[in-house]
């Protein structure tokens, strides 16, 4: 019972941190306005941490609550569709890569970042019924990789610091 309360409290805290990171990212000026959608993906630090620390189920919970709250606070139904597609694809491929045991946290994070962009581009293609925006993906793949490296390093540092602390 005590462990359960502790776990839920920690997951709640982590969701709040992810939400704050989403907000920080939302108020940052666009990095390169010619290609919308370039982001660092700061909340993914938390998602990766949860994925490694307590597993997929909790990562899905934190990710879903964060998505819903972000849409409620700073977005709308439309932005929810984009971020949900990005998050689902990102989390699925990160889980797969973690299971394959081929990459470190950084590699998993790169896959997550690029997959997030890919999910959003696919939804944009479906909504606009045009494949012409597909070339954005080429730029986003590069920025997603670079962002993924930094997010992965940050996540691995946090995972290491919390190694002895049980959630």
């Amino acid at each position, binding site marked *: 019972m005590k462990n359960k309360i502790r776990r839920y409290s920690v997951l709640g805290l982590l969701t709040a941190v992810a939400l704050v990171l989403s907000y920080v990212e939302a108020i940052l000026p*666009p990095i390169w306005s010619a290609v919308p959608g370039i982001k660092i993906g700061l909340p993914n630090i938390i998602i990766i941490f949860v994925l490694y620390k307590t597993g997929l189920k909790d990562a899905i919970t934190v990710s879903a609550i964060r998505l819903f709250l972000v849409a409620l606070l700073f977005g709308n139904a439309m932005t929810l569709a984009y971020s949900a597609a990005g998050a689902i694809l990102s989390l699925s491929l990160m889980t797969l890569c973690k299971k394959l045991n081929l990459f*470190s946290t950084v590699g998993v994070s*790169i896959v997550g970042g*690029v997959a997030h962009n890919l999910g959003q581009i696919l939804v944009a293609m479906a909504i606009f*019924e045009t494949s012409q925006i597909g070339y954005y993906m080429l730029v986003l793949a590069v920025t997603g990789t670079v962002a993924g490296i930094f997010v992965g390093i940050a996540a691995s540092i946090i995972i290491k610091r919390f190694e002895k602390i049980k959630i």
Partner: protein
Amino acid sequence: MKNNNSQKNRKIRNDIILAVAIIFIAAAGLLLFVLNREEGSMVSVKIDGKQTASYPLAENTEVPIITGENNEHINILTIKDGKASISEADCPDKICVETRPVSFVGETVVCLPHKLVIEITNENADGGLDAAV
């Protein structure tokens, strides 16, 4: 411990291979894209996936584009010096306004909140006028 370390090194090596592979493929794709692009002659306006109008890039002009279920949204399409851009909009994020002017075939300016895409095409002027009717 040694085993653990070699596994760690192998993973870091794989990370680097992954990052280099993605960047290489994307760079090759972008290079192909840049080499194959051509200047367009028309700009077509798509609202919610449906083409509603098109204008020649040769004529400098400013056109208001009204979108939304109750015609509540507006974007101003500006064509100047053979390039098309959105110069004004009442969307919340203004990403379309910040997007640089486009002139190559297939290039787009997108306004996500208004479900608006303007896209450069190279259909001939006659076809473009037909489409505008």
